[in-house]
């Protein structure tokens, strides 16, 4: 574990010259997690790669921070050492029990996702962005396996959902939900 030096009350930002790809803790001393931070990051990147075909190179040049409740953030590689930080970057996953990719991660990097994609119809898309769970046809699921999936409508990467059989459990955060008037 790199980067957690100095005042234990600090947020773990210590130096401005970290290597990219470093894992630093965002908040709070927690020995167990501290030891596992590199492991959590490694497991997450491996999962992104294996399940979605997301190459690790998209994270090059950034730092990954482990926050409370297994939240993993992707942020700038260099940060001034003396700042109290409220948010270290983009939330990319929750890795407390299993690994759940964030909707914002998929909306940003969705174009590079290669597999475990559920394409939706226009009507399904309207429901999805409102936060509705739905039952899919078996043919829509195809060879996508149970677990988290990228949900897509045409070229729009809508976000993350949890597939179990033919049930698609919606993961769109409440604050992002929207009634679409145009599609």
């Amino acid at each position, binding site marked *: 574990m790199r980067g957690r030096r100095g005042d234990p009350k600090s947020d773990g930002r210590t130096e401005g010259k970290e290597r990219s790809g470093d894992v630093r803790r965002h908040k709070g001393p927690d020995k167990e997690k501290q030891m596992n931070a590199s492991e959590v990051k490694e497991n997450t990147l491996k999962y992104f790669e294996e399940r979605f075909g997301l190459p690790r190179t998209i994270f090059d040049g950034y730092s990954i921070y482990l926050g409370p409740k297994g939240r993993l953030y992707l942020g*700038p590689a260099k940060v001034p050492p*003396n700042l*109290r930080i409220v*948010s270290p970057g*983009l939330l990319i996953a929750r890795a407390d029990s299993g690994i759940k990719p964030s909707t*914002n991660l998929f909306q940003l990097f969705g174009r590079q996702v290669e597999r475990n994609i559920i394409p939706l119809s226009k009507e399904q*898309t309207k429901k999805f962005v409102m936060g509705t769970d739905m039952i899919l046809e078996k043919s829509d699921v195809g060879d996508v396996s149970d677990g988290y999936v990228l949900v897509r409508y045409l070229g*729009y990467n809508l976000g993350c959902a949890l597939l179990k059989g033919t049930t698609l459990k919606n993961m769109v955060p409440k604050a992002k939900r929207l009634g679409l008037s145009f599609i």
Partner: protein
Amino acid sequence: MSNIPESFKERYCKLVDEPEAFLASLERPLPKSFRVNTLKASADEVKAGMESYGFKVRQMPWCAEAFVSDSLEIGATLEHFTGMIYIQELASMLPPVIVKKELEDARIVLDGCAAPGSKTTQMAAIMQNKGTLIANDLDYERIRALKFNLEKSGVINTIITNYDLQHLPDQSYDVVILDAPCSAEGTIRKNDHIFDSWSPRAVSSYSGNQRVLILKAFDLLKPGGTMVYSTCTFAPEENELVVDHLLKNREGASLEQVSVEGFKTCEGFTGYDGKEFDPRVASCVRVWPHHNDTGGFFLAKVRK
């Protein structure tokens, strides 16, 4: 808008080129505008999407990402849901536009009063998510909106801090944007409640704070660095007077001429209410609502 105080009209009709056109513009709602978030989509892609819904969208000549739409419902589209667009008033896009080149080259940038994040997300897009952007705001409640908007826009190169800018720890920045808390007179077209709390005394109180902040923001610049000081108000006390205060108190400060090709602006006032300002403040610009059909704005570009 019947609630515009007479004292406000008197104040500005003396200062503006076409008082009738100015007052009439305040009565009209703002055009619906948005900015394409180039971290997620190109202007052409978004334009095609919007046109497929039957919207007529017009690209601004002064910023390829800035559009005006004839439909008020741009918020109810997938482009909005996926963060491909950011709904933003045209005038508020100007601060990053006038330092676009500097932002492209910058390694570390500060947005001093960042919430809710329209300019921060615009700067992150210009920086192509590279380098480091510090988005600071004093108001913890508004930071929630800032965080939401940064994440929705796919911004990675930005961290959020919650300091009173006066007490932000020392650090040297290539670019500092100080879009200062102000009396917001220029936002009347979208919020006619601003006059509930408007008074010359409030203007004076904002001005005092702005004079403190502009010195601090300037001190945070690297030698050779660039600062934008901006407000969304017409009050000279919050604009030219503040820039004049900087020039009087920091020898190393110089002003660059602000110009935005294809966008009409007026030069800064070199005096007001019996006070003479440093003549260099003429390089600042005022944005009057009736000239480009926008909100009101003020911009100064300062070099260290």
